[in-house]
């Protein structure tokens, strides 16, 4: 096309109106995309859960639902607590230093990852792709686990392993320890999951 046939005035306005159309289209897309985000109802559903822990015997686990996720309350035996020390060298983050604000509240940043050494409270969702790891509390060799297994959890999806404090083993797909939710003891037998400050 030769330059003389181009009406530059018209071309400028064609470009300008084209840009205006694109901007308008993008603006219209915003409400449509916004409908994908969680609704007000979904945001509101996040109340704290109160649990009676007096009936849990040593070595037992209780699962409760909090924000649609499984929260485990495990009463660990002395052997299981002892094992937490033995496995430290094989863990990716034994001191819970990675993303501490999201994963481990300050009061759980210890070897047991808990307020009371006996009770572990954790969200049972693997930090890899969100499966719920299964209980492998029995020590010793078993399928999919190393022969010197000290008890913990095995994620059925991608084989990540965790110790009895939800700490992830090294060189596994899961990058982080299991999340410890905000929680507090209302009394010796009442546990509140989802809040850690007195109202």
């Amino acid at each position, binding site marked *: 096309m030769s330059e003389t046939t181009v009406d530059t005035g018209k071309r400028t306005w064609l470009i300008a109106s084209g840009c205006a159309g694109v901007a308008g289209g993008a603006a219209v897309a915003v409400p449509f995309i916004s409908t994908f985000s969680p609704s007000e109802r*979904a945001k509101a559903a996040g109340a704290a859960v109160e649990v009676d822990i007096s009936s849990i015997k040593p070595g037992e686990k209780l699962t409760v639902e909090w924000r649609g996720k499984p929260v485990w309350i495990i009463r660990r035996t002395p052997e299981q607590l002892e094992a937490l020390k033995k496995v430290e060298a094989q863990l990716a983050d034994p001191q819970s230093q990675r993303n501490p604000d999201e994963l481990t509240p300050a009061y759980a940043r210890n070897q047991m990852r808990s307020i009371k050494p006996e009770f572990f409270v954790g969200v049972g969702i693997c930090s890899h792709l969100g*499966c719920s790891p299964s209980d492998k509390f029995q020590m010793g060799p078993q399928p999919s686990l190393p022969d010197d297994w000290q008890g913990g959890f095995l*994620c059925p999806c991608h084989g990540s392993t965790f110790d009895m404090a939800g700490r992830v083993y090294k060189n596994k*797909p899961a990058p982080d320890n299991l999340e410890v939710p905000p929680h507090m003891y209302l009394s010796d037998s009442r546990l509140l999951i989802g809040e850690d400050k007195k109202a």
Partner: protein
Amino acid sequence: MAEFKEISPNAPMAEKALNWVDNRFPLSKLYKEHLSEYYAPKNFNFLYFFGVLSLLVLVIQIVTGIFLVMHYKPDAATAFASVEYIMRDVPWGWLIRYMHSTGASAFFVVVYMHMFRGLIYGSYRKPRELVWLFGCAIFLALMGEAFMGYLLPWGQMSYWGAQVIVNLFSAIPFIGPDLALLIRGDYVVGDATLNRFFAFHVIAVPLVLLGLVVAHIIALHEVGSNNPDGIEIKAHKDTSGKPLDGIPFHPYYTVHDIMGVTGFLLVFSAIIFFAPEFGGYFLEYNNFIPADPLKTPLHIAPVWYFTPYYSMLRAITTEMMYALIVCVIAAAYLGATRAAISSTLKAAVIGGALVLVGLMLAIDAKFWGVVVMGGSVIILFFLPWLDHCAVKSIRYRPDWHVWLYVVFVLNFFVLGYLGVKPPSLMGERVSQIGTLYYFGFFLLMPWWSRLGETKPVPARVHFVAH
């Protein structure tokens, strides 16, 4: 624009009616271009059934899908029960549902065969790149369609499968967690997720699929079909301009394809009636348990057609990252020393490799697993530009090329097998080697496809009358 065509008033009624339509809509023109005067090579073998079969399965899925939607409820509280209702109470509902669930697996069987055919006969080579690209896009849309459809029965596998795949997106640095939230519409997979997946599965993705299928066929009919010899039949035409090695698609291939369709429907019906669950491969046993957000089944695996990619995802561990870093460094070294490119480009290769290695060390293996899984599908799009072999068809490639393809296919099966198995140390090692082979096959193709002595390609197709 065609001239308005007058026809003799004494012509038969049917002829006049056709002429009336043809003056307003290109009916005869479309019929000729796509059927009666679309010349297809006469040496097609059975692998060429799978294109038509893909279309057949698409129709089966759309028709059965419409009828399932009439009884299904996209609500987390009632979805599982509504599927059981279809299976038990809706007259013949079980048949429609089994046709749809078996159809999903059948779709992947025929599409994998169709892609394999394209791969070995070089059907993606110039000038058929766009046919291949549209085809890859169809494959991608089909994977999305299958994945979202699998959530709808709201069984344990539906739920935890969706949980895992949506969480893949959360592995992306910075935007990942918000993106996963946007996909789920809730903090966990829930009613909102089910509802939107239903919308995508029954309307959005099927519309895209149909559009892509039309584009795939238009592009194919523009350039003409390839054949097992990888020879352009348009190079030898008779005096009237018809390819000597071509025959009209209709009636020859339409009739021929009826045989393929019959064979397919025989197997398809046998599965529907005698083994609709196919030993847990087409319908996984855990999916007969309603979704429970508190408990992951002890063994979860995707449906068989996703398992090769799933294996590659599982193969990327922290250890594997070091092997991949070595690969990147080796590639950059070869690029900088051996490739015939300008020195600025070489500097860019080294710089890029260093940045990549830095990122590989800085970001979790989890993210790279997702990259590898996505890359294993995306890499197919680049095939037309990776293959530099002098000949198109495997028939005239050097013999050792054939072995590379044999190993590629076996490797794909091994990865698929490992993907349905629970994680194990041995399986992890094998899938890591398999992942390296899969990517090596494609990424090194510009190099190895040029090597070796090709066999002489005949001028005309190899055809034995029967």
